[in-house]
Each structure stands twice: as C-alpha cells, then as structure tokens.
C-alpha cells in the first residue's frame, strides 16, 4: 500500500555561517516507512531534522505537507509531527510524570494511568515521582522517549534517538520504530548506531544525493 507522501522536500537548500550545508536535497517521506538520515559529523543531519520539524526557518526550496506547502497549515503540520531533538525537552526540576504531562498538554490530553504505563514501558516504573535531575542521562532520555509509546502523530522526526541508551534499550527502540512503520507511521531518524531494519530507506547527506 503506497500512499501519498506525508512530507515532501523539493530542492532544499540551507546555508549556515557562509557554508552551504544542504544543497539540492529532494526526497519524500511516505507513510509506513523508516528512513535513516546518514552522513558524517557536520554534514547537516541535525539541521535537516530541525528544518523538517519547523524549528529552523533559514532554508530555501519547498516543503510540502500532504501535497500542500507547509506554511499554509502549520498548525495541522505540528499536530501531526513529533520531534525529539538532541536536547530531550525534560525539565530537571520536574518529575518524569510532570514532564510528560507538560509535553503532551498542548497536543492531546492523556490521563495519568496511560502516562504511567508509558513510563513503565521505558523502564522507568518506580521513578515516576523522582525529580529528573536525580536520574541518569539515559533515564532522562527515556522520559522523552516515553512520548513515543503514546504518540499518535503520523510523522516522527527523531534526532539521535539512541544516545545514552543501553544495548537492551536500543534493541527495544529499534523494534518500536519498525513496528511503527509497519502500522503505517513514517519515521525519520538520524543515528550513528548501526541500524539494520529490512526495507529501511536512506537519505545520505554530504556529497551524496537524496532518496536511495
């Protein structure tokens, strides 16, 4: 079932500090696929994800959301896109529960039982009410990742998801992403971890061209 692309980039170009970071980049992200953005350090992976997420506005080219220019309905785009960046978006002074609640608040109200289940799913059962600053870096990232277990946004943009996660966690997350793609979600990840998923698409940055 090849459906219409969710997000389409046409001739994306981004210049940063006098350097052409992205050039002639065109690709489309289709539901039901897992795409990995590849490239060495400094090749613009994070910048690309920030552009796609709508955080970085300093680009030229075209971005189409469901076939229409993204700027036309930004709210619907944001409602249907989940972005996890380098910085996990977790307040160290709040507990995992409070953090998760705050992150979901502007999107979809979810009751606390579901959130507790999500936290438990990331291995944080029992830590629900410990301030996040007392958690390890990996645990803090897991709080952010707990969102993936309740998220219903069709498009996921995940920057370096596996950072600070242990081997077992990595395997579980891999399975989650794969399953998400199988369900019809679209997942875009950047990672240096050697991700091996059948049917995975690639966007290679730095010298290479878009779309496998």
């Amino acid at each position, binding site marked *: 079932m090849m459906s219409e692309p969710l997000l389409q980039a046409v001739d994306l170009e981004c210049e940063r*500090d006098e350097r052409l970071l992205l050039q002639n980049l065109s690709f489309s992200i289709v539901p039901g696929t897992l795409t990995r953005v590849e490239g060495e350090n400094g090749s613009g992976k994070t910048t690309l994800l920030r552009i796609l997420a709508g955080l970085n506005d*300093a680009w030229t080219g075209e971005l189409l959301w469901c076939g229409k220019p993204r700027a036309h309905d930004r709210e619907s785009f944001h409602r249907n896109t989940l972005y996890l960046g380098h910085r996990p978006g977790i307040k160290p002074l709040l507990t995992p529960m409070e953090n998760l609640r705050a992150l979901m608040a502007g999107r979809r109200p979810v009751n606390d039982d579901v959130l507790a289940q999500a936290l438990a799913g990331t291995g944080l059962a029992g830590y629900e009410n410990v301030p996040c600053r007392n958690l390890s870096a990996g645990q803090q990232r897991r709080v952010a990742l707990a969102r993936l277990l309740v998220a219903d946004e069709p498009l996921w943009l995940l920057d370096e998801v596996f950072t600070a996660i242990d081997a077992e966690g990595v395997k579980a997350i891999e399975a989650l992403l794969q399953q998400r793609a199988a369900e019809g979600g679209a997942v875009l990840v950047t990672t240096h971890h050697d991700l091996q998923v059948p049917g995975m698409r690639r966007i290679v940055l730095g010298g290479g061209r878009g779309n496998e």
Partner: protein
Amino acid sequence: MWQFFHKLGSPKWFFGIATRFMPWLLAGGLLLLAAGLIWGLAFAPKDYLQGNSYRIIFIHVPSAFLAQSIYISMAVAAVVTLVWRMKLADVFVKAIAPVGLLFTFLALFTGAIWGKPTWGTWWVWDARLTAMLILLFLYGGVIALDRAINDEKSAARAVAVLVLVGVVNIPIIKYSVDWWNTLHQPATFKLTEKPTMPMEMWLPLLLSVLGLYLLFGWLACIRMKTEILVREQRTRWVRELVLAGRK
C-alpha cells in the same frame, strides 16, 4: 509589478544602479551642503534673540532630521525583510545603522554645544535632546544586536524585529519625554522652535538639509555596495564584476 519588486530586491541590479548614481549624489550633496553652510555661516542675518550661536542650526537640524528619518527608513526596510525576505532590505539596514548613529550623535553634540551660550550649561534635560539621547540608545542596541549574531540571515531578521519594536516605541517615547519635561521644568526656551524665521534663514537651512540627504544617499550606496560584496562574493556576477574592474 511583482517583477519590478523582485528586480528591486536583486543585489546585482542595485549594484549597477548605485554605481551609476553615486557620482551625482556625491557632487550634488557636497555642493548643496557647502552652499547651505557657507550661506548660513556668513550671509544669513544674525538672530535677534540668540545672536550668532543660532548658526549651529544649519548643522543641528539637518543631523536631527536624518537621525530620525534613517530610523524610519530602517523600519520600512525591516518590514520588507520580515515579509518578503528581500536581501537588499537586510543589506540596507545593516549598512545605514552606523550612519544613523553618527547623525544622532552629531545632533546631540551640536545641541549640547549650542546649549552653552543659550542656556549657560552644556546639557539641559530638554525634551528634544533627551529624546535624541534615547534614539542614540536605540541605534546602539540595533548595532550591538547585529554584531552579536554570527549568522547573517538571523542577524538581519532579529535586527528587523528590534527596529520595528523601536519604531512603535518612538512616538510613545517622544510623547512621554515631552510630558516629563513639562512636569519638571515648565516652558523653557526651546532651541529650534521659532515662531517666525525669515526667508534668509530658511533657505540655507533647506539647502543643507537637502545636501545632507543626498550625501546620506551616497553613503548608503557605497556602504550597501561593500556589504553586498561581502555577502555575495561567491556568486558568479560579483566574480565577473570584480575581475572585469581590475583590467
């Protein structure tokens, strides 16, 4: 119409036009300014109230005019930057902000010196001078912000937001400073406010204002050209232009 607008924003097009107009702007500006100043210094009649010190008006008023109109023109360019993302508008704001700062400083400095023979003191918290001082701060902020942001495009857009916020505030600042002035020192003798000014004073003033505007045009052109060179040096047309100019 749209095509014209687009062309207007093209640095290459501007570069050509500016190069053609600059000699005229420079010559006209220097001529008018010199005429206005010499007339004002040597030939205009003495003011019956302030004596000869009023001759400072021929540089004080043009500087103050420019200080204000440069800020307003920056605000117009800021709207263009934010709405149409026109390259030339960013270049304009960045190039002329220091010019605006200089004219604001000149207006303040000449005002202060004028104050000595008129009020007997270098500085009076007069409404106009105070408003000018705040304008100087606004210019300083714009330049400081521009310098602080490395990325050119972000700097241009951030400065545009700041300039717009400033321009919304200028009338409020002006009004509140006027009010504050009446509150603390009612009805002082104003420097430039004259009920009647004879023609012999108006004309040289008009000439020097016009001359200074032309010189400002020239300054804007050459500074924008420099800025365009810096930004566009990797483009083909700049390369061709520079290499052609060498021969």
